[in-house]
């Protein structure tokens, strides 16, 4: 039987199952095949908050969403067109996100009484008509998987059942014409050492694929053509990996060994894990006793002439405040990566938010300004990390790099840069006296940066500390005028960082009188929403900030040139405060504080309402 092929411009698929069902694996494999096919894509895993909730419960549901298209896309998608639910709990937890009329593929084998009860269903939703609004496709995935793997030598029945995720992968691969070789090669590689498991996974995958091809349940399959893309080599990265690679790249480009000192905390731990694997680049990672130590150790490493970096999330940023203030006074390079998460205090550790901006800017006692950089997309974390390092080294200053849970976990294709195109970072260590017969650690260059003389350099011994320092010499000073001068010098130095910033890129349309101004991980959702508004005839421009402190020099003129400025943020309105204070424009705030990214549709509406 040949089936219809329909073309689709874009599709959102969500795989959902129990934590033990391997949904993240299915999602990643599907993503790779999609990437190789040349679709543009964006993905978002959705992990359970519990370590290992009891199997079959709502708390244990794990999901993975992928949005792919034949044109460029910007977010992992608001609502899936297709939901794969491996058990009743997965159905219950995710059905709400599925578009009305969307396709719902369930593993009907798992809808036994026990699982229904664990998920809190009183009746079987597959049978009570409650799913009538969707295209329900019931597939006995477990049975079919077990059948497909029968006869494999040495395969235990439990292991056979566990391959049902590959069945689902095969089925969806067929549905969207994903290349099978990519997944099959991955299975071959991954299970090379375990022939029975390898064979079972291959069999399950193929069974799923063939099921699509032959079963009468599915009348059509879809084609999503490759998206036009700039020539180049691509890989798929999430924000964590991109940040790690950016830091390593900055280390190589600067010649400064990378020293990450960190204390585990969700969702920043992954960066520690990732960098721990890169000893080959001389990367040292140290798990400190707490966040205060983590920051202090990194600062010590910077004093030693290395690239001191510390990573954390909100609660840890609180604890680092005093040490960051010391770094402001010492004027040493230090990069603090804050992977923002939701809520005050412990909050919702696995959820996203961008509510640490004001903390990053003002969260230290006294006047202690520092540059703040924010990444806008998973892949852009690479550039943002390099930029944070560049500023830290060039200006001898701590820099806070803001990412968030969404960026850390979400992934998208990344066109690999040429190493030679990456910024050069010159540590410009001081090696000689800079004054008559001596060394003044606070004699500044034209950018107001002070010299960085590292231990081991003969003749440049010096002592620095957190007490106010005399201009030039760095000796302790309580002189009122000196304090005023130093306070203004530190502020002026940070302000100078704006001089390096490229002009703000504005995505303009003819006649727009409204600007949507964003920062951080909302870039994709804002851009997608702006597109939709324009498609509906709305005229609106878009700009996105990567340098949050100091603000780019052309921002004032820009925001003042619009009738209205809309600032969407995943907080209660933080950037908007800064913009209003700085430029006195009556910028309008659109906020969402739900631990979730913006949906394109809700932003589209919010913008429309304000046009």
């Amino acid at each position, binding site marked *: 039987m040949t089936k219809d092929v329909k073309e689709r411009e874009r599709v959102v698929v969500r795989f959902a199952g129990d934590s033990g069902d391997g949904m993240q694996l299915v999602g990643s494999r599907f993503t790779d095949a999609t990437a190789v096919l040349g679709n543009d894509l964006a993905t978002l895993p959705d992990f359970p908050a519990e370590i290992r909730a009891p199997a079959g419960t709502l708390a244990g549901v794990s999901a993975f969403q992928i949005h792919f298209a034949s044109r460029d896309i910007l977010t992992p998608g608001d609502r899936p067109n297709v939901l794969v639910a491996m058990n009743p709990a997965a159905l219950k937890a995710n059905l709400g996100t599925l578009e009305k009329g969307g396709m719902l593929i369930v593993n009907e084998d798992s809808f036994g009484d026990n699982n229904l009860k664990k998920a809190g269903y009183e009746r079987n939703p597959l049978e009570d008509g409650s799913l009538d609004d969707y295209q329900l496709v019931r597939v006995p995935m477990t049975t079919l998987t077990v059948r497909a793997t029968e006869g494999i030598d040495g395969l235990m029945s439990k292991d056979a059942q566990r391959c049902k995720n590959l069945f689902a992968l095969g089925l969806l691969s067929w549905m969207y014409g994903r290349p099978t070789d*990519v997944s099959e090669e991955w299975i071959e590689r991954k299970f090379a050492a375990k022939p029975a498991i390898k064979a079972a996974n291959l069999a399950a995958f193929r069974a799923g694929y063939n099921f699509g091809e032959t079963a009468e349940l599915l009348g059509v399959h879809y084609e999503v053509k490759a998206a036009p893309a700039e020539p180049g080599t691509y890989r798929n990265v999430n924000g964590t990996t991109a940040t790690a690679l950016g830091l390593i*790249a900055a280390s190589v480009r600067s010649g400064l060994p990378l020293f990450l000192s960190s204390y585990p905390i969700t969702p920043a731990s992954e960066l520690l894990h990732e960098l721990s694997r890169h000893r080959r680049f*001389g990367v040292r990672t*140290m798990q400190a*006793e707490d966040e205060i130590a983590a920051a202090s150790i990194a600062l010590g490493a910077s004093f030693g002439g290395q690239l001191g970096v510390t990573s954390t999330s909100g609660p840890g940023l609180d604890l680092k405040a005093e*040490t960051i203030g010391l770094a402001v006074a010492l004027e040493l390079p230090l990069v603090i990566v804050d992977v923002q998460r939701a809520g005050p205090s412990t909050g919702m550790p696995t959820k996203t938010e961008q509510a640490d901006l004001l903390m990053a800017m003002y969260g230290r006692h006294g006047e202690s300004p520092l540059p703040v950089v924010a990444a806008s997309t998973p892949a852009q974390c690479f550039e943002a990390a390099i930029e944070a390092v560049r500023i830290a080294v060039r200006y001898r200053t701590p820099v806070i790099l803001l990412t968030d849970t969404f960026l850390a976990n979400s992934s998208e294709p990344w066109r690999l840069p040429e*190493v030679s195109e990456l910024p050069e970072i010159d540590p410009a260590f001081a090696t000689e006296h800079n004054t008559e017969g001596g060394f003044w650690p606070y004699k500044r260059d034209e950018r107001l940066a002070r010299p960085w003389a590292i231990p081991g350099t003969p003749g440049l011994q010096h002592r620095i*500390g*957190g007490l106010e320092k005399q201009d030039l010499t760095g000796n302790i000073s309580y002189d009122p005028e000196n304090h005023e001068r130093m306070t203004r010098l530190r502020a002026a130095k940070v302000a100078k960082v704006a001089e390096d910033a490229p002009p703000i890129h504005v995505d303009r349309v003819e006649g727009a009188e409204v600007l949507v101004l964003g920062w951080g991980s909302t870039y994709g959702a804002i851009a997608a929403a702006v597109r939709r508004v324009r498609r509906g005839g709305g005229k609106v421009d878009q700009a996105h900030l990567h340098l949050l402190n100091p603000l780019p020099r052309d921002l004032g003129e820009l925001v003042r040139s619009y009738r209205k400025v809309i600032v969407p943020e995943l907080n209660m309105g933080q950037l908007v405060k800064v913009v209003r204070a700085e430029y006195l424009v009556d910028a309008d705030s659109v906020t969402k504080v739900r631990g979730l990214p913006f949906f394109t549709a809700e932003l589209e509406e919010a913008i429309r309402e304000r046009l």
Partner: protein
Amino acid sequence: MPDVKVNGANGGSPLPTLTKKDFSSDQETRWCPGCGDYAILATVQSVLPELGVPPERTVFVSGIGCAGRFVYYVDTYGIHGIHGRAPAIATGIAVSRPDLSVWVVTGDGDALSIGGNHLIHALRRNVPLRILLFNNQIYGLTKGQYSPTSEQGKITKSTPFGSQDHPFNPIALALGAEASFVARTVDVDRGHVAEVLRAAAAHRGSAFVEIYQNCNVFNDGAFEPVREKGVREANQIRLEHGKPIRFGREGERGVARGADGGLEIVEVAEVGEDALLVHDAKRPDPSLAFELAHLAERPTGPTPIGVFRAVERPVYAEELGRELAEAHRRADAEQLAELLRSGDTWTVPAA
């Protein structure tokens, strides 16, 4: 990065041209007249030239407190950090730069109150640091509040009716935290301070040195029995590895194991020299050192000083340091390009 040399030692050979002057900065010392810190500073400055590490490869890190001012007076690299964090900052320096000799100067409040956690973690990790704890049993810089080493019932500005806290025994705490080198000395006893500093400098890994330091303004006389000439001769129990523990003006007293298995102070004449405990600083089990630490809970009578424990155990990340330095040297653009390309990639050809 310069070549890796452990603890900053210059291949072990002394630099005979160095003198005390090479380790003295041009900053005016600003402690109260009569403060015990002066004596310690002078001894440190006179011992440093002996150690074979030039000033530029020596780093002092301190926290906040009177003791913390120390770094300004030594002409080496230095950080006067924030309160309590010196061991952590110094860890970053020592770990990133194993070619340096890194010293921490800290007070009893700095090290044991706000900084207690960093101290015990540096010790357990055996980070190559020489940690000098200036214990004056008081907060000096903030003008006289009690500290975690002040005796219970202490009347200070923050405890006008007497403190409620039972104090730490710093030696015992360090031993409980797995310290590989633990010693104690007394500010004005320059010969002894120098000896202990030399031993600490020679130690690989963390060397923890408690220095009884008189704060003549807020806690004068706290260490009188072991500090003042005339009485200290009777009260200093000088521990020496491999030697029977004897003390007193004429060595007339000693330490022996009692009937209940615990240590006790005995008259040598009564028990005989052979009954004395022989000090063994190198015993892998820290229990003997711990017992000695409890021989005198406070320096109000006979009190052990010297090296309680000095054992070799792996220095934190020492091997790794060499490896990483090597790897970093090799890491180049090509390797980086390869790293960026790792994982599944695909190529979009030029149209």
